[in-house]
């Protein structure tokens, strides 16, 4: 599938900010099943984008703007060719020993509730790790009601039995790590054919490592391993670590941008 993505991030600063600085993980990398045909990032202010790799291998761009500004718009857009790999992530260099992906973070910490849930699923599923992870995805999909929550920490989402795709990924990661399975968070895009409304946040899912198999994605919100409808942007230990945009404005530290994401099949929708 060839997907065309337009991802807009628009800040409004009131009162005007005195300069802003942004860190972007907003450029997908290529790997088996994901070929980036073209991609660019536009900023509506003068700035120099500097590009680097973070230790997870993500492409990180950063820039700053000087002077007074009452708004800032960042647009990432491009086309990505995807193939269904049944969730397998291959053909990408891995920089960390997998043991790093057993670390807890604030967002992916587990509590007794998550640990018991994970242990029960582990006990009831066939002995191989792949079956356990599929059972975990099934189990979470059934146990959790979809919806936005204020707090997307694994513990909070699991206690409320409610969360969006990103919160569910945190619960999945917390449970898998408790079972000793290295797990991480992937941010990206999900193409939903027929959906007219744009998305207002990026998608997120979990990836787990199985010895001898490698990294496999699990999207508990959709109860599916990523297909060719998925475009993978960045990875991290949790949502914050893989966030497409982290920014600060001098004078207005906590401005929350308005996000609009439009995904279409390239060639099938007329571009404006």
């Amino acid at each position, binding site marked *: 599938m060839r997907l065309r993505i337009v991802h807009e991030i628009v800040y409004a600063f009131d009162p005007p900010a005195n300069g802003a600085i942004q860190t972007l993980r907003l450029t997908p990398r290529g790997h088996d099943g994901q070929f980036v045909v073209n991609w660019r990032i536009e900023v509506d202010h003068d700035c120099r984008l*500097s590009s680097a790799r973070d230790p997870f291998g993500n492409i990180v761009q*950063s820039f700053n703007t000087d002077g007074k500004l009452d708004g800032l718009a960042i647009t990432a857009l491009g086309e990505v060719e995807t193939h269904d790999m049944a969730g397998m992530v291959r053909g990408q260099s891995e920089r960390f020993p997998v043991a790093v992906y057993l670390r807890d973070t604030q967002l992916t910490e587990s509590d007794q509730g998550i640990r018991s849930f994970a242990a029960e699923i582990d006990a009831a599923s066939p002995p191989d790790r792949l079956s356990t992870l599929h059972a975990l995805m099934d189990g979470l999909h059934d146990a959790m009601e979809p919806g936005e929550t204020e707090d997307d920490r694994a513990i909070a989402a699991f206690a409320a039995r409610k969360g969006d795709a990103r919160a569910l990924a945190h619960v999945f990661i917390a449970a898998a790590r408790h079972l000793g399975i290295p797990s991480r968070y992937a941010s990206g895009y999900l193409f939903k054919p027929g959906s007219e409304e744009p998305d207002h946040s990026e998608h997120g899912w979990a990836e787990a490592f199985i010895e001898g198999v490698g990294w496999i994605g699990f999207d508990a919100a959709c109860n599916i391993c990523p297909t060719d409808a998925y475009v993978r942007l960045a990875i991290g230990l949790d949502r914050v670590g893989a966030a497409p945009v982290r920014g600060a404005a001098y004078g207005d530290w906590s401005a929350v941008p308005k996000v609009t994401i439009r995904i279409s099949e390239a060639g099938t929708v007329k571009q404006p």
Partner: protein
Amino acid sequence: MVVAFDEMGSSGDSCRPGYEVLKRWLESTPPDLLTTRRAEAELLFRRIGITFNVYGDEAGEERLIPFDIIPRILTKKEWSVLARGLEQRVKALNAFLADIYSKGEILRAGLVPDDLIYRNPYYRPEMAGLKLAHDIYVMIAGIDIVRVDPDTFYVLEDNARTPSGVSYMLENREVMMRLFPDLFAEQRIAPVENYPDALLATLKSVAPRSASSDPTVALLTPGPYNSAFYEHSFLADKLGIELVEGRDLLVRDNVVYMRTTEGPKRVDVLYRRLDDDFLDPLTFRPDSALGVPGLMSAYRAGNITLSNAVGTGVADDKAVYSYMPEIVRFYLGEEPLLQNVPTWRCREPDALKYVLDHLPEMVVKEVAGSGGYGMLIGPTADKKTIAEFAAKLAANPDDFIAQPTLALSTSPTFVDSGVAPRHVDLRPFVLTGGDKVRIVPGGLTRVALKAGSLVVNSSQGGGTKDTWVLDA
């Protein structure tokens, strides 16, 4: 109860080498005069303004750390043995950090379990593969030393994050010189006043290679609400560098600047007294308003040196501490000159069993704890406390290590009942620069003021003493 080794050797007429002048002076000085001097010392400290806040103390009242006017003395010979051991230890700590943030050879060799590092809360994945200007992670180390007999010094803890207390070392000396000029005239005592110069030279020596020949250094503080703020402003003043908060700094095109009245000025080295978690909201905690957005990008680009480096906390973890002898041998191919206190790692089932069976004799510490909080001192704890601790230990064994209760050495101390022995430790400060290692002779002696107590932490009834290294 084991009789502790007294460093003066207070029984009888004789005394240990180095203490001759002090002993004679103590014997010839009436208690009234000591009381007067102590009051004068307290007045001087209040005027200088050294105070500290105790975490969790609701009133948030500023307290003066008790100061004992009787110095603790080390001979030149004792010190030179210690200094060599300290230099070796910090060298190994730096090599260890450089390794675990790059190839991880010590983990591959199976000498240190990798989960102890990779799952450690103080390990920072963000540091992996980051090449530091001089491969130095810990420019400023505070190594806590205890002594149990004339020849045995143990390292109790390595402080590789932001060791504090050096301002007390400097102030204690200043006050002692004012109160007892005669004692200083009678013998040669190694100076400590050059510490600020040594620190500044160290910090300049680790500047990025792109910096000018006279690099700009600034001290980054979390601000006046931090318990060590006094020390931050004191040191900035002594070093003649700017004291800045996060909001005074900005990052432009991966270069760090401080705002000044003459416009932005480039900063090359940040002596940061702000924890990793708060350094950069774009990399670590997004809710930190104390840090500098973009600082880590500048760090990664090699345009700023942070002292100490990010992620050094993994080296002062108490479970990692227990591997220090192996770490020294692995990187330096030498036998460690300073010994560790024998340590049981409760994460190992056999060790846990032993510890649980012997709790009343042991000291148990949280691996990530500091300041003497969250520890059990078996011999002085009641049965209920021990039982509660045993439950905590059994539930989360990974979080604890245990050590035998050491008979820490004592030093004569002026307390309400007169001059009496009290347990002491020593925190020397080891400065590692791009050019050389600098260690000011002595360090901060902490003393447990309560009779029999082994807890020297200022937050728990400890005081300080001036530390004299005799220069002859």
